[in-house]
C-alpha cells in the first residue's frame, strides 16, 4: 500500500490567500492542484512536503479566454476543459493533438495545465507545445506578477523559475495570423509518456512563404526549440524536400538516451519522421485557416 508521509493540509480560497499560505508554511510547503503528478510522487516518498496548499478552490484560475492577440488560459484549467474548448481547437490545434494523448480521460478530468508545466517532467507534452507556441507564463508572487518566456520558465528537469512563494497563474499563447500547428507522439501504450513526440507551429506571410516556424521534440533531452531545423523553412515555401531536411536536422540535434522506451537509433528515427509529419500537418492547417478566413472575408 502506497501512503504519503504525514503532512499538513490547507486550502486556499483566493490567489492572495495561497501566496500567504505558501509564505507562512515556508520552504517545505507545496502547491497541489490536480495532484496527479505530486500525489504519486508523495506515495513513493519521492516528494515529502510538510504542507500541501490546495488551490482547487481558486476558480478564478480556471478559464480559457480568447483575446484579439492572445489566448489566455488559467493555470487551474483541467486538461479535459482544454480538450473540449472550441477556441483552443480553432486557434491552436496542437494543444488538442497533445491533450488527446496525455494520460487518459479520467486523469485529464483532474490534471491541470499549470500542474503539468510546474511538474516540468522532461517528457511533458505540454512543455513542447508551449515552447513552439512561444507561450508566456504569468507567475504571481508577493512582489506582484512576472511574465516569463518558456526559456525563462524551464530551468531543467523537474525545475522551473517559479519560486517557493510564487504561483503560476496563467499561460498566454500569442495568436498569429495565417498560422497552423500540430503535435504527434509515439507511445508504447495509450496514456504513457512519449517514446518521442514532435510539435511544430508555423505562420505564413501573405505571399505564402514561411514567416515564422518553431519545431520542438519531447523526451529526447532538448530544451527549447530546434533552430537548425527551423532555419531550413523560414522565408521559403513549404515542400516535402524541406520537411525532410528539417526532420533530418531535428533528429541530428536530438539527444535521446537508450532506455526501456527504446534504443537511441529508433528514437532518432522517430524524431526525424515525427518532425516531418507535424510540419506537414501544421502547414496544411495554416493554409486551411487562410482559405476559411478568405472565404469569410
Amino acid at each position, binding site marked *: 500500500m502506497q501512503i504519503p508521509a*504525514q503532512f499538513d493540509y490547507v486550502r486556499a480560497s483566493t490567489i492572495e490567500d495561497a501566496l500567504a499560505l505558501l509564505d507562512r508554511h515556508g520552504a517545505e510547503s507545496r502547491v497541489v492542484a490536480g495532484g*496527479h503528478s505530486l*500525489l504519486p510522487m508523495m506515495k513513493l516518498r519521492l516528494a515529502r512536503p510538510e504542507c500541501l496548499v490546495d488551490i*482547487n478552490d481558486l476558480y478564478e484560475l480556471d478559464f480559457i479566454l480568447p483575446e484579439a492577440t492572445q489566448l489566455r488560459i488559467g493555470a487551474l484549467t483541467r486538461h479535459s476543459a482544454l480538450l473540449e474548448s472550441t477556441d483552443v481547437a480553432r486557434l491552436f490545434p496542437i494543444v488538442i493533438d497533445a491533450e488527446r494523448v496525455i494520460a487518459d*480521460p479520467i*486523469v485529464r478530468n483532474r490534471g491541470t495545465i499549470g500542474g503539468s508545466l510546474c511538474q516540468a517532467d522532461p517528457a511533458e507534452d505540454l512543455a513542447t507545445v508551449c515552447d513552439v507556441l512561444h507561450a508566456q507564463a504569468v507567475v504571481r508572487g508577493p512582489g506582484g506578477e512576472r511574465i516569463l518566456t518558456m526559456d525563462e520558465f524551464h530551468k531543467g528537469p523537474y525545475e522551473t523559475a517559479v519560486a517557493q512563494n510564487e504561483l503560476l497563474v496563467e499561460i498566454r499563447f500569442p495568436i498569429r495570423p495565417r498560422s497552423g500547428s500540430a503535435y504527434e507522439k509515439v507511445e508504447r501504450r495509450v496514456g504513457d509518456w512519449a517514446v518521442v513526440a514532435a510539435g511544430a507551429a508555423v505562420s505564413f506571410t501573405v505571399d505564402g512563404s514561411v514567416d515564422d516556424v518553431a519545431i520542438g521534440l519531447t523526451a529526447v533531452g532538448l530544451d527549447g526549440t530546434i533552430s537548425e531545423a527551423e532555419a531550413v523553412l523560414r522565408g521559403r515555401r513549404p515542400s516535402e524536400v524541406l520537411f525532410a531536411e528539417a526532420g533530418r536536422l531535428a533528429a541530428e540535434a536530438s539527444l535521446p538516451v537508450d532506455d526501456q522506451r527504446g534504443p537511441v537509433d529508433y528514437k532518432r528515427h522517430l524524431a526525424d519522421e515525427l518532425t516531418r509529419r507535424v510540419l506537414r500537418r501544421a502547414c496544411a492547417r495554416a493554409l486551411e485557416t487562410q482559405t476559411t478566413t478568405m472565404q469569410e472575408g
Partner: protein
Amino acid sequence: MQISMTVNGDEITRESEPRVLLVHFIRDELRLTGTHWGCDTSNCGTCVVLMDGVPVKSCTVLAAMADGHAITTVEGLATGTTLDPVQQGFMEEHGLQCGFCTPGMMLTARALLDRNPHPDDTEIREAISGQICRCTGYATIVRSVKWAAEHPAVEENAEEEVTA
C-alpha cells in the same frame, strides 16, 4: 482533520489524517467496499468514483480534497431496488467476468451517458480507455454501455416525452 462530504446523497463527517486517500477513506472509514483498490498508481481505474458527477481515480485524490464535494460510488448507482440502466446493462450483456474492474467501469459509463446519452462504440472505448479489464472483456463492456444507452431509466423517458 475533520472531513465532510456528501456520499451517495448522505452527508458524512469523519476525523481523518490529511494523507488518507479518497479510496481508503471510502473503503475503510465508510465501509463502502464496492469501490475497489487496484494498482494504486492511477493506471487501472478500478477505484473510479464520481466527484461532482465527474469520474476521478480515488487512489490519486486525497479525502481532504473531496471535502465539501459530492461523491458517488457504485453503491449509489441503484435507486432502492431498481438498478441503474448501466448495472442492468452489465447483467444483460455479460459486462463482467471477475468483476474487479466493474464498479469503476460502471461509474465512468454513468458519467458518459449523463453527458452523451447516445455514444457510439468509439466514444465508449475512449471513455473507458483509462481503465483496465484484466479479463479483457472490453467487447461485452462496450455492449453493456450501449444496452444502457438504449434503455434509459423510466424518469428520463418521462422527461423526454414531456419535452417532445
